[in-house]
């Protein structure tokens, strides 16, 4: 009986992230438009875009190889799996032992690897720009992410997100400087990874400063749709990661009945709403930075992570 419930919950999570991801993207766009005093597209606009795109035919560059055609699905699959492994509304999922925080980060790394290759495949200059900058950003974001994971695991004694969430709910966490630093660092990494302002502008084309868009410039039709979906899944993933690590309240522990789960889903929705709102506010409030300032930005994140870890030692020692 319990097994079936586990399966159901896991499947629910899989579907939930898949369904919520475009909504979150649309929601953020809407808020940004409102903050700019614009009407903005309706919330369901992303769904419409996706449906339209997958019905269109694919226009493929002459010398595009199989890598170019396979990449979107691999990217989508890895991102989706990663998103499904992060506790959103419930911990102790059936598949959560399959990967801890580091593995999830690495999964996103595989997605990025494929995306960068796809950017190089057609052999255009824009694709090259995108891939090289994306990899440069990643080389700085990943160590920062690992430092944060180090801090968290130092505190919670685990990199298993379920355990982390449960620990964070527990009483003996308290308010810690290093946690705050880790949070800030994680947010910075999340911004960089999701190609948001100030690192990159998701709503742009034909800018020499674009990164993510440059890589997918050659994509069209269903390929583009899948990649867009993967992108919004990634955004969702990071939001729920921040949620489950830093504001884990209301996350259902495994093995409760469905009402509890329903409640925690609602709570999770609220978290997303707040997160999205903050993101939109932040993005409208700040300007995009030069590409080579990104290294300083992420270097700061790395420093924060390291500092958090070391401070934790100190605070432990006393």
């Amino acid at each position, binding site marked *: 009986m319990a097994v079936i419930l586990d399966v159901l919950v896991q499947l629910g999570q899989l579907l939930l992230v898949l369904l919520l991801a475009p909504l979150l993207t649309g929601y953020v766009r809407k808020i940004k438009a409102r903050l700019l005093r614009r009407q903005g597209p309706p919330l369901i606009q992303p769904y419409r875009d996706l449906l339209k795109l997958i019905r269109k035919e*694919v*226009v493929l560059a002459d*010398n595009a190889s199989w890598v170019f055609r396979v990449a979107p699905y691999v990217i989508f699959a890895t991102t989706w799996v990663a998103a499904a492994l992060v506790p959103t509304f419930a911990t102790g999922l059936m598949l959560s032992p*399959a990967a801890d925080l580091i593995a999830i980060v690495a999964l996103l790394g595989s997605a990025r*690897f494929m995306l960068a290759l796809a950017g*190089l495949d057609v052999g255009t200059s824009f694709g090259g720009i995108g891939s090289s900058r994306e*990899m440069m950003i990643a080389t700085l974001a990943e160590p920062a992410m690992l430092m944060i994971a*180090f801090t968290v695991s130092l505190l919670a004694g685990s990199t298993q997100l379920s355990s982390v969430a449960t620990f964070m709910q527990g009483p003996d966490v308290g308010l810690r400087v290093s946690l705050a630093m880790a949070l800030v660092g994680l947010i910075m990494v999340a911004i960089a990874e999701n190609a948001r302002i100030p690192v990159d502008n998701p709503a742009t084309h034909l800018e020499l400063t674009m990164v993510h868009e440059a890589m997918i410039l050659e994509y*069209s039709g269903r390929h583009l749709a899948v990649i867009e979906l993967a992108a919004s899944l990634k955004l969702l993933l990071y939001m729920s990661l921040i949620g489950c690590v830093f504001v884990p309240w209301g996350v259902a522990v495994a093995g409760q009945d469905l009402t509890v789960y329903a409640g925690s889903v609602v709570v999770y929705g609220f978290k997303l709403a707040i997160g999205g709102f903050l993101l939109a506010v932040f993005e409208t409030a700040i300007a995009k930075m030069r590409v080579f300032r990104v290294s300083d930005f992420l270097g700061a994140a790395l420093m924060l992570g390291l500092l958090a870890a070391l401070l934790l030692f100190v605070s432990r020692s006393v």
Partner: protein
Amino acid sequence: MDTLAIELLLWCIVALLATGAMAVVFARKAATTIVVYVITLIVSTIALATACWILVADATAAQQLRLPIGLPWLGAHFRLDPLAAAFLTVVNLGGAAASLYGLGYGRHEHAPGRVLPFYPAFLAGMTLVVLADDAFTFLFTWELMSLASWALVMAHHRQEGNARAGYIYLLMAGLGTLSLLLSFGLLAGTDGGYAFDAIRSSPLSPNLATAVLALALLGAGSKAGLVPLHVWLPLAHPAAPSHVSALMSGVMTKVAVYGFVRIVFDLLGPPIWWWGALVLIFGGITAVLGVLHALMEHDLKRLLAYHTVENIGIIFIGLGLALAFRASDMRGPAALAMTAALFHVFNHSVFKSLLFFGSGAVLTATGERDMERLGGLIHRMPYTAFAFLIGSAAISALPPFNGFVSEWLTFQAILLSPQLPQWGLKFLVPAVGGLLALSAALAAACFVKAFGITFLGRARTSVAEKAKETDICSLSAMFGFVLLCLVAGILPGYFINALSPVVQMLVSAQMPQQTALEWFTIVPVVESRSSYNGLVLFILITSAACLAAYVIHRRASHAIRRSAPWDCGFPDANPAAQYTAGSFAQPIRRVFGTVVFHAREEVDMPPPGDPRPARLHVHLQDRVWDGLYEPIAKVVGVTADGFNRVQFLSIRGYLTLVSGALVVLLVVLAVWQ
């Protein structure tokens, strides 16, 4: 005690050496190539099977054997224990694959007479080093290995640079052997107890032990390519024929690691905590510097060689952690770190050989090693491209491949470091972890560059356009390793279990048995702490991808139209308009290069009206070479000049020397009495 396995292995050695001799005799015959590689393939396979059998079946009993050769009163001792068996597996796996690859690749060899005699000797040397059980045999075979590989590096001695590469290589090998020799001198003591058993039974004082560690680090490190002793590696490895490069990079460096492990963990007594710190620092620096060098490189084989440096760094990080944990008697973590290091040894040997095979295939197909002159090969050589892609993913530590598992284990060991009592290590290890993550990310970037520039995009030269897919032998060797990358990635539990007796022997503890858990999840310490399951991830990703593809193709469109690339409306037909390796690495060079390489960019912009093209010059300098090796060379030169004056004295001058010596000795005598 039954010595069947070790006798079998020694017979394999004899067969290999005989093959080498045979190759000398029949150097002129064309069939020799086939014969030699077939024999080496068979022999290596036999040895591989034996080693695996030892490792899996009865890993506890160490087989020993003594032959009446070598030092007369000592004889040549051989020993087959779990550690030896593990490394024998690596050596002979690489050997077998390289031989299979050589069956195809060797046909294109224009000077087989300079390769065939030394190739079996090289294999024999590496196997013997692992089997050796006394200092003399160890060093003898160690140097034999270096010598054979040197000869193979010199095989193409007419290409410019190769002779210099061979020279520097043999010189560094000499340095390494010398320091290992001295360390054994310390271990053996004044009465020359060179047998490893005697060494184990005679503990050293802490200071002497530290000296031994330093010498071992110098000796093994110079062979493994530890910064700053790595300079020969990116010169020598690419100079050799590609299957030999694969062996040198994938296997010989591992033999060096074996030497370090054998001396430090087996022969040397209990460690001191800061040894771990030392090794960690070297490992971290090596990892990052190696991969940064690789990023700046656009010669495919040199790039791979620099990545060997990086992975050696990762392995040494694991070893350093194991030392640190062992020093404060934390058995479990030590076992974890050691397992991670050994598993990475295996993994790196697999995917590095695979990648060198791929580069060799490209080399034979196009005659080019320079990425800037390649491109678009995925259309001409699809299978090679696929194999290379898998290798790249594996070396970039991407799940679900094997490279990720070992690095993940290393990270888990790093995450256990807060339990260490020493504050120095508490602070050091996280930093090293940061370096490890940095190197992993940089490796991913580097292999996006390597694969993307070489195989993707459009052909940059005519040779790249006319490339042909390589032969079936080479491909089968590559795809065997592709399979291994995947299997070791999704079912790591079996490999970890196979390593457990080795780890047990080295740090007297082992990781929990893995394969018992359902769904082949691996759990380093406890499940609540961390766990990983490559199999599930693999199944999930493939099924999700297939599902998505199926649904979309079925329900929505699957129409495709080919057309010119969009490229924001300005497509440029000229392949030179693509991103090059140099431009791909430019952002990272901007970020790290100025510090590490003194990187300077000069834009040479002609004035308006001047027809000549604008140029961008990039100046990099290898600070290790300029800072360490140049001065040494200078000192030697100056001293030589100084001494050289003595060559041109008059006879009276020489008589003065003689009588001066006489008077000095007499004075000494007078004083002494």
